[in-house]
């Protein structure tokens, strides 16, 4: 094959390394060279891990020679920088953790390293994973490899850009309201958020604990399944992980959708997205039918309240979680004569505007006199949203809808907070219900003012714990449509 090593899929790399036709060291050098060639332009990584990667690659080659079977042998991995990796800087893209070195490794990352992955770098994100464009990073700018004038999406924007620019074969991100699925859609990738509780959050810097979930961003559905299979399952270090058998997804990939009912949501009228995008989604739904799916209509009457529900619950949980950043035990401290002033000055200097905004909303929503009106009401609305999905899944196996409200937009295009929040309109309801959902490439549109076609993502969603069915179905759709391979990243100017 003439394709470069860094273009190859994780499945392909792992089987070549296991068969001995390629070494993890060679794969790693190719990946690091690619990072050096393009990342000054893309900005996917906050920290490049050349030394760590070379050490890990040598260890993987030794394990393969010793006869270990590694499902991800030598696969170059980008790690979102809100996940701990022992001995490496872990910043959450915040000034408050800019120089913090993690003293332990997140379970999800540790499992991927055990499976043979080689960490190439720590990827940029919106500060503390709060945002939909990566523009809220306090530590760097990440650009969309398909058009460097546009954002990569967020919050897992660095993870998405790294995989799209071929600077890693796979990435891990975290998704609270759409932070894996939206950047995957923006960067022509598969982005998969498993059922809440499927993947351990131990070592993931918490944003909203009842919503946060780790998942893969990859160039193929098969790679997403391989990464998911390696990460999923109970972890004694995270009491919210579910102790129940994980059905392997990589061996459940389907060739068609015969026998499956796919629900289209009556309330999600794609005409509001403009005629080009509407036509692209119409085609995607037709393609699902052409793959053998029976298309049915389902109703999610409270889906429209998802955004409001989320923007009370997530900030409330964030205001509590981020109280730990007080300048005492780790991270930034701004000195002051008394402890109260030290807290207030440290947090003023350490947090960016979006993080402050969410802490303030959350603190207000939880404060005396407002708790019932805001927080409790949002928790009840969350119940209604989850019930809607239960009813919908009585008449379908999967739900299909857009993954984001638009393709990737230009930098500084969303100036008021609410217009940015609207990007996650289609992904938030699934997060509130804890459902597994993914984005898979489904077409291209040239946005107004844009010069090149940008990718769109189709979101597929399944009942809780039906990950294998979901990934299996996405594979059938991907195989039939091949949208991802239509255009490549536009890095000619910066590539060697």
């Amino acid at each position, binding site marked *: 094959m003439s394709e470069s090593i860094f273009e190859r899929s994780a499945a392909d790399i792992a089987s070549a390394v296991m068969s001995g036709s390629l070494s993890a060291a060679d794969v790693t050098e190719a990946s690091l060279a690619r990072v050096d060639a393009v990342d000054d332009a893309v900005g996917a990584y906050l920290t490049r891990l050349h030394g760590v990667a070379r050490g890990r690659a040598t260890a993987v080659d030794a394990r393969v020679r010793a006869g270990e079977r590694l499902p991800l042998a030598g696969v170059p991995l980008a790690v979102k920088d809100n996940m701990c990796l022992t001995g490496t800087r872990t910043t959450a893209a915040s000034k408050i953790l800019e120089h*913090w070195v993690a*003293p*332990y490794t997140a379970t999800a990352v540790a499992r991927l390293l055990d499976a043979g992955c080689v960490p190439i770098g720590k990827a940029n994100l919106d500060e503390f994973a709060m945002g939909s464009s990566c523009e809220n990073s306090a530590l760097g700018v990440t650009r969309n490899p398909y058009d460097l004038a546009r954002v990569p999406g967020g919050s897992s924007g660095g993870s998405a850009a790294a995989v799209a620019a071929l600077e890693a074969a796979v990435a891990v991100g975290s998704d609270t309201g759409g932070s894996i699925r939206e950047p995957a859609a923006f960067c022509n990738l598969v982005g998969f958020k498993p*059922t*809440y509780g499927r993947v351990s959050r131990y070592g993931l810097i918490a944003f909203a604990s*009842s919503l946060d979930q780790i998942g893969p961003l990859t160039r193929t559905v098969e790679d997403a399944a391989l990464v998911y299979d390696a990460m999923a399952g109970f972890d*004694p270090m995270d*009491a*919210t992980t*579910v102790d129940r058998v994980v059905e392997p997804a990589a061996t459940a990939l389907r060739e068609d959708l015969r026998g499956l009912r796919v629900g289209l949501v009556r309330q999600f009228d794609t005409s509001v997205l403009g005629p080009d995008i509407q036509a692209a989604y119409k085609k995607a739904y037709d393609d699902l039918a052409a793959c053998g799916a029976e298309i049915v209509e389902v109703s999610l009457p*409270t889906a429209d*309240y998802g955004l*409001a*529900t989320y*923007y*009370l619950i997530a900030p409330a949980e964030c*205001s509590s979680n981020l*109280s730990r950043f*007080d300048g*005492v*035990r*780790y*991270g*930034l*401290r701004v000195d*002051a*004569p*008394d*402890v*109260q002033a030290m*807290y*207030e*000055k440290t*947090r*003023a200097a350490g*947090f960016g505007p979006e993080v*402050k*905004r969410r*802490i*303030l*909303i959350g*603190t*207000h929503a939880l*404060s005396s006199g407002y708790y019932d*009106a*805001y927080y409790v*009401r*949002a*928790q*009840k*609305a*969350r*119940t*209604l949203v*989850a019930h809607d999905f239960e009813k919908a899944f009585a008449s379908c196996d999967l739900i299909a809808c857009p993954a984001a409200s638009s393709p990737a937009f230009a930098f500084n295009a969303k100036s*008021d*907070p*609410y217009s940015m929040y609207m990007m996650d309109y289609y992904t938030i309801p699934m997060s509130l219900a*804890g459902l597994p959902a993914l984005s898979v490439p489904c077409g291209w549109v040239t946005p107004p003012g844009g010069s090149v076609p940008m990718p769109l993502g189709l979101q597929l969603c399944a009942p*809780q714990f039906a990950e294998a069915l979901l990934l299996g179905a996405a594979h059938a759709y991907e195989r039939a449509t091949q949208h991802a391979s239509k255009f490549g990243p536009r890095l000619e100017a910066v590539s060697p």
Partner: protein
Amino acid sequence: MQSDSIDVRYVARLARIALTDEEVDRFSEQLVDLLRHVDALSELDTNIVATTAQVVESRNVTRADEPRPCLDRATVLEQAPRSQGNFFRVPRIIAE
């Protein structure tokens, strides 16, 4: 729910974040706007609906009360902004 105004200085004090006057003005305006959007929830009839805090089964987790290896003290203190001996050092908390 009422959201025509919000005392951002009071909320910021609860959240332990010092704000500039400019931030107070900007956040006041933005927070009122955001809360106006979430006011839509009052349209839902939630009187007989239970709250959801967690979406998957959860249970108490216990383990034997035995010492186990944990993070090394020196490694942890290395990351502290100020430390002294085996302690995190902070400004005076109790007045003389």
